């Protein structure tokens, strides 16, 4: 649709601008302000320049948390995106069964995040949880509270349980928007299932896949409540991700300067990766085919 140029449209946008600016710019400027000062109390503060940034970038604990965060986010994308596409392809397309599947799939998305942690905390326990008991009966020595590998597996499975539905729902809506005529044409041409997927469905999914990769990356990069409740970041620091390190630094130890510097670096990493994803997927979409 061609849009009309009209600068008075700003009047319609002003409320949003004011509201979000109040919640975003004021706090963000506070963070920038903290990140360059050493604060002893309300009246004693010293300008320290980039010292906190250097300290944060050199901190071993935080570097490891960053590494864990990347491994986690990429593992999540690798599992959830293909699984989500597969489930969307398997969903019934119309009728009561489609509605019911949609509602069931959306259910995990509506559970408060710390309750998700609680559910898995209970479900995964080897003594009273169904999941933990089943795994133990299979002869695997499983204890997510003591063994880092088990803890990782549990956090990954929990995230897959929690969020794959989002990818599936997005892809489902993308698939439903493809006109039936495309499939009829493909059938007349004698296209295989794979060819239909590769050349009819996948290209049409480009937009929704872009949205799901962005949303999943951003949200998994901010994950806090679920592992906090499930493992508390442990055993040791094995499931401590970035948000939790930051919350510890800011609220636990009240190190305002380093916490603020950390916040800004964190935010910039997310922005950078979202921009990268966005541009690469747009490039891919253009591709060699018209």
């Amino acid at each position: 649709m061609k849009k009309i140029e009209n600068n008075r449209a700003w009047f319609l946008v002003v409320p949003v601008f004011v509201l979000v600016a109040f919640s975003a710019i004021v706090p963000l400027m506070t963070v920038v302000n903290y990140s360059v000062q050493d604060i002893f109390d309300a009246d004693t503060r010293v300008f320290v320049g980039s010292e906190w940034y250097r300290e944060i970038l050199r901190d071993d604990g935080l570097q490891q948390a960053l590494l864990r965060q990347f491994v986690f986010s990429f593992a999540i994308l690798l599992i959830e995106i293909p699984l989500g596409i597969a489930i969307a392809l398997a969903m019934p397309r119309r009728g009561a069964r489609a509605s019911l599947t949609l509602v069931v799939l959306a259910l995990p998305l509506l559970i408060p995040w710390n309750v998700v942690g609680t559910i898995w905390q209970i479900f995964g326990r080897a003594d009273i949880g169904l999941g933990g008991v089943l795994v133990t009966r299979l002869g695997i020595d499983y204890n997510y509270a003591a063994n880092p590998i088990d803890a990782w597996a549990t956090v990954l499975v929990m995230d897959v349980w929690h969020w794959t539905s989002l990818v599936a729902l997005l892809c489902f809506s993308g698939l439903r928007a493809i006109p039936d005529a495309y499939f009829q044409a493909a059938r007349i041409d004698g296209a295989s299932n794979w060819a239909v997927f590769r050349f009819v469905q996948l290209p049409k999914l480009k937009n929704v896949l872009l949205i799901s990769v962005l949303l999943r990356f951003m949200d998994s990069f901010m994950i806090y409540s679920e592992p906090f409740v499930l493992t508390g970041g442990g055993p040791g620091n094995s499931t401590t991700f970035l948000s939790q390190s930051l919350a510890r630094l800011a609220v636990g130890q009240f190190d305002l300067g380093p916490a603020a510097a950390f916040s800004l670096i964190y935010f910039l990493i997310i922005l950078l990766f979202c921009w990268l994803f966005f541009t690469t997927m747009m490039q891919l979409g253009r591709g060699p085919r018209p």
Partner: protein
Amino acid sequence: MKARNLLLIGYVVFLMLPLYWLLNMSFKTNEEILGAFTLFPQDFTLDNYRVILTDASWYMGYVNSMIYVTLNTLISLTVALPAAYAFSRYTFVGDKHLFFWLLTNRMAPPAVFLLPFFQLYSSIGLFDTHIAVALAHCLFNVPLSVWILEGFMAGVPKEIDETAFLDGYSFPRFFLTIFIPLIRSGIGVTAFFCFMFSWVELLLARTLTSVDAKPIAAVMTRTVSASGMDWGVLAAAGTLTILPGALVIWFVRNHIAKGFALGRV
């Protein structure tokens, strides 16, 4: 076809098992939970729910959450509707930058804003009020609402606007009596998403409240660490937090897929 159905059924079972276990435990006594591994409650009890529904420190958690979620949904929709209209119909100076800036707020980790929010709302005297949480959640819900509504509005032909203006409708009258009814499904979906993201968020809600506006999710975390684990009550509280979502989702079931795609399919 068979493999497809197996995958779907397998996935649904995988989704349902932890939920079933939560429900199952909420009907058990603590002795049964810790004493024996049973697939069904042997000693069916509603005591866990009774604890929650008769203790004000528990059920006020639900009331508080409901209040700020409703406030947030109303605020987000009110400001996002005109803005989304502007983005879907007009180009204006800085529109693309503004849109991207809004999106960056959806991407910002709430942990980054933890401390400044706490200080901001304390300094203006809103700490531990419902409106503080509602405003804080606007940080991600307003950009999301604008995003979804813009997608739905772009699907309404511009000729409708033009005809209405030719017929002498003023902008507010056109917007309220013609345009809003046209995108009511989009508004329903947006309201659902505001509800959802405000309902599930804990970090900010917990930081900005202490007693009077404490959300249910925060009440739960406190109880986890107190005097051993009361698993039965915890499971019942968890089950009750799922109910509101399960109820509202039924109303938007036919639009939800489009909503998740931010109206852009």
